[in-house]
């Protein structure tokens, strides 16, 4: 075994001490863009955001602007939105439909398959001495998981299937339940004064909910017709928290297969409509996922390494002290329209920039980010010691499973994964948990073949 000195040793797995430097340091940040966002499979969009040929949707991998487009043959591409000439953006709109992209600076024009098709003055000004073949748009590797589009710049990256690993066994319960798949709406975009990692690690922090979100819980539980969430309930919860390849997964056991999933938008009034829906789609879900995943468990809050937060929602880094957050609503295509509407409406009202819940997160995360700049704060560090040593394997659940639903195993796993990426010279140094889960049913990584 090669023994080398780790450049980054930011999380102490015994004491839970975390070095706050990673939230504020410019050099660390620049290295993250290369070593994490330059390597990982990053969620960039969804099939349904570019439904037609020549549609494009503008997105990001880290700070790099990316054009997600469906070419004339229906194939998805992710291009760096940077003209090969001077680096200006060739697409300046959020969405559109175009067979080619002209840079508005000097007119270099690319096809939506990435070919540099036209350079003004190629014969005269360049004396035909320009290699258009070499000056294609830079293209990322693209793969989809049940309609969600992931991309990576790294040619040495493993498959998306390996990257997600057994996390997919859980994600399937929300994203891959029905033949019809899901549909994405949004995003709502805003700038958070926080380091991107706080948004990710917090989304599976089951400890903060009864305090940070108390006001939203007080007014929301009434509408949902559920008992009020308390600290005690969180500590004694039967829910499970699982860690795989830096992804964080929570699951809730269901009492019966048609139980309305605990999601914003399911209210006391419409709960029976959701239950009708789960009942009428159970056979299909069971065929796709097997009975345990179709009716025994619900996927709860989760994050997908590096920057997927609480479902298909993205924390785009914008310097160490800022994050551009994108809130999407993802709903099953086969849902009746009125249920779709109530999920969409609740999605934006509970989370997103106006969210009853999410608006209260901001000053916490900002505190974590900005507080890390002080000399004393740096010296003392953060303490993520909750539940050290209380995790292990569970015969029914793939991955490493926390003993309790509330713990800081999540943060320790996330920052350890961060170290693995930051200390690696290439993908060959980054460990991946083997896939061991029994993927019962017909659902595949593509959704439906």
């Amino acid at each position, binding site marked *: 075994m090669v023994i080398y000195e780790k450049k980054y040793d930011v999380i102490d797995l015994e004491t839970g001490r975390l070095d706050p430097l990673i939230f504020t340091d410019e050099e660390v940040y620049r290295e993250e863009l290369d070593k994490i966002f330059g390597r990982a499979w990053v969620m960039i969009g969804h099939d349904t955001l570019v439904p037609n040929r020549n549609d494009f949707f503008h997105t990001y991998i880290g700070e790099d602007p990316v054009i997600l487009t469906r070419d004339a043959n229906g194939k998805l591409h992710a291009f760096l939105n940077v003209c090969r000439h001077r680096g200006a953006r060739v697409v300046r709109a959020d969405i559109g439909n175009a067979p080619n992209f002209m840079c508005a600076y000097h007119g270099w024009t690319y096809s939506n398959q990435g070919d540099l098709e036209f350079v003004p003055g190629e014969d005269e000004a360049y004396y035909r001495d320009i290699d258009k073949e070499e000056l294609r748009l830079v293209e990322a590797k693209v793969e989809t998981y049940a309609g969600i589009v992931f991309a990576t710049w790294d040619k040495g990256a493993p498959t998306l299937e390996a990257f997600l690993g057994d996390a997919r066994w859980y994600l399937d319960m929300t994203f891959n339940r029905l033949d019809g798949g899901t549909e994405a709406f949004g995003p709502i975009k805003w700038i958070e004064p926080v380091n991107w990692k706080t948004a990710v690690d917090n989304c599976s922090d089951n400890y903060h909910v009864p305090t940070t979100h108390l006001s939203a819980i007080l007014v929301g539980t009434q509408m949902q017709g559920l008992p009020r969430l308390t600290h005690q309930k969180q500590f004694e919860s039967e829910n499970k928290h699982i860690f795989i390849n830096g992804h964080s997964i929570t699951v809730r056991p269901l009492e019966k297969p048609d139980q309305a999933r605990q999601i914003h938008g399911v209210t006391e009034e419409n709960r029976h409509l959701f239950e009708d829906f789960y009942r009428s789609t159970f056979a299909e879900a069971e065929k796709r996922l097997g009975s345990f995943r179709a009716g025994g468990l619900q996927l709860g809050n989760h994050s997908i390494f590096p920057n997927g937060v609480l479902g298909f929602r993205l924390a785009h880094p914008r310097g160490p002290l800022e994050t551009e957050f994108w809130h999407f609503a993802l709903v099953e295509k086969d849902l009746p329209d009125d249920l779709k509407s109530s999920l969409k409406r609740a999605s934006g009202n509970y989370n997103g*920039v106006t969210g009853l819940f999410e608006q209260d997160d901001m000053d916490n995360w900002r505190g974590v980010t900005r507080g890390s700049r002080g000399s004393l704060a740096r010296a003392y560090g953060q303490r993520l010691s909750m539940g050290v040593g209380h995790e292990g394997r569970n015969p029914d659940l793939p991955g490493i499973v926390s003993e309790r639903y509330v713990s800081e195993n999540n943060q320790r796993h996330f920052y350890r994964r961060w170290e693995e990426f930051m200390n690696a010279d290439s993908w060959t140094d980054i460990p991946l948990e083997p896939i061991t889960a029994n993927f019962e049913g017909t659902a595949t990584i593509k959704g439906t073949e």
Partner: protein
Amino acid sequence: MSNQKLGQDLWHELMQFYIHEAWLLDDRKFREWLELFTDDILYFMPRRLNVQRADSAKELSQPGDLAIFDDDKTYLAMRVERLETGMAWSENPPSRTRHLVGNLVVEPVDGDSDSNNSYSNNDEVKAKTAFILYRTHHETDENIFAGSREDILRRVDGAWKIAKRTIVLDSNVILSKNLSVFF
């Protein structure tokens, strides 16, 4: 009275209404503010996309799509009730706000009137305003939101109420940590 005079009176009356509303918000009288809305209110702020001119029809997300605000009375009341718990941390300590409302244009509700500028029998009118909302929070957070509002106002027991409000922000990526204030 002439239609013109009626129009001027109405404009004046509604401008007073909006000034009153702005003071309620800036004085943090949110419960009183909530009473300005009818029970069937839709308080709506679409997403605003950055699109080429040819795609202008797609600039605003449509009703039914994911929106920034999409509140019926229940949700809007939840927002106010939340503030009253004292534990809505995004507004405790509270934001300092200044709502400036102007550029009022009053129009008959579409298809509601067969003659222009005839407001005399209308219990519903369309009122468009432009606004600037200045907000600071904690020590140094500062936001300037600008945009338009298009309201359907309804006269209920002699008083104007807002039956539908569509707020269009002049923003794509919202340069604010949250929208915990009202528009």
